[in-house]
């Protein structure tokens, strides 16, 4: 893929060409050689969009809410990134979030489904790149839906400007959310399925947990929604906007985005290193060193020390 071609795709995407945007997203999703070029190009223009993460247990109504939010934002070019796990056995995935979204998104959001593809670690770099591409293509807001179960998935939703955590009535769900580390990352809580009994109880439970938690200048508001009837969605969007204003006024937005970029750089190095560790251990020097360990000639620690030399840079990195 030539830089020229990538530049053309960006031009088209910025002009609202969905196919071009779809192609660019595929490139960063593959994280192949084109991805670096696309990412580089996108980074120049990114930073304009509001990024909202929506997470919570499966079935809580995240997709329904996300689709509704895109509409409630009143924005002309909202985008949704819906992330679901790939099957660890086959690498395949059923990405069914659009069903819950299309019905509501009369406004025509750009919706992209993304599978975790094998290693969830890859998501930690593919998602920021995808958000960057959407941002550079003029989409705003960008809403990222992830299932709040794995650590990586939660951290992806948490790497937004505003993170929305969805729970449903029933004490159990809030406790689950607590265990998954969801409560700490929430900027806004949603108790969805408020048409069910005891939504108020769920809100009370959350209030109690918030009372127990550490205090900061922002206390996460709790919004009751019935997403299937679009009830409470405008309130939810209003709270997201209030949080956006808080981020700006407090200077927290700059801090957050700075932290986000630092985490991404670290994630990328980690991913690359992990690949190289794999190569070294499975390669010839690895086999040789492991053979010596097997014959009790050297300890595993000594073997690691030996192999580590292969990782050390010949030249120190330039600042």
């Amino acid at each position: 893929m030539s830089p020229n071609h990538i530049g053309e795709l960006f031009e088209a995407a910025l002009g609202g060409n969905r196919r071009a945007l779809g192609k660019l997203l595929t490139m960063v999703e593959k994280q192949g050689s084109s991805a670096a070029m696309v990412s580089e190009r996108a980074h120049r223009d990114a930073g304009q969009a509001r990024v909202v993460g929506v997470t919570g247990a499966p079935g809580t109504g995240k997709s329904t809410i996300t689709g509704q939010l895109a509409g409630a934002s009143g924005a002309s070019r909202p985008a949704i990134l819906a992330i679901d796990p790939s099957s660890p056995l086959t690498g395949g995935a059923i990405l069914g979030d659009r069903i819950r979204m299309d019905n509501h998104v009369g406004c025509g959001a750009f919706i992209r489904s993304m599978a975790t593809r094998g290693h969830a670690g890859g998501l930690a770099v593919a998602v920021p790149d995808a958000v960057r591409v959407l941002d550079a293509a003029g989409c705003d807001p960008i809403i990222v839906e992830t299932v709040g179960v794995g650590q990586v998935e939660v951290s992806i939703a948490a790497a937004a400007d505003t993170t929305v955590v969805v729970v449903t009535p029933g004490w159990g769900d809030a406790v689950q959310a607590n265990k998954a580390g969801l409560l700490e990352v929430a900027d806004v809580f949603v108790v969805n399925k408020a048409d069910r009994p005891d939504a108020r109880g769920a809100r009370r439970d959350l209030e109690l947990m918030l009372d127990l938690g550490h205090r900061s200048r922002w206390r996460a508001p709790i919004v009751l929604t019935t997403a299937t009837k679009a009830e409470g969605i405008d309130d939810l969007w209003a709270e997201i906007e209030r949080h956006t204003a808080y981020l700006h006024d407090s200077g927290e937005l700059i801090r957050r985005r700075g932290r986000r970029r630092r985490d991404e750089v670290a994630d990328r190095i980690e991913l690359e290193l992990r690949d190289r560790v794999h190569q070294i251990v499975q390669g010839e020097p690895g086999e040789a060193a492991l053979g010596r360990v097997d014959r009790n000639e050297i300890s595993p620690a000594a073997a690691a020390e030996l192999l580590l030399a292969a990782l050390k840079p010949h030249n120190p990195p330039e600042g």
Partner: protein
Amino acid sequence: MSDPCCEAESPIRVVLAKLGLDGHDRGLKVVARTLRDAGMEVIYLGLRQSTDSIVAACEQEDADVIGLSMHNAGHLTLVPRMVQAVDQAGLDVPVVIGGIVPAHDVPTLIEFGAAAVIGPGASAEEVVSAVEAAVARPTAAR
């Protein structure tokens, strides 16, 4: 493409949908699982889709292939309409038809531009290989 290794690694992305108004999606769900189990990424649109919504999904999802389920005997009008919509959008995405299509209509649908028609009795392997065969053409051309 500078990166043949990684291009090959990406799973086939299938948009799976049912056109028009007919009722249930049990069969479609079975196909979705079959394709997932074969390592594909299935973007499941489900029931009551229009040619427009399917084309929009294909663009946004950069899908490799459309899987369309037919049950309401509308295939002779709906299939050409779908193929035409794909062409008009300038997409290079094959359309594979499944569901209930009388055997004698299969040649007509192929003539209309369907990449393959999978009969109601097809095995999982047959479904998978029909989709793979349909994709092979445009993927190689990329």
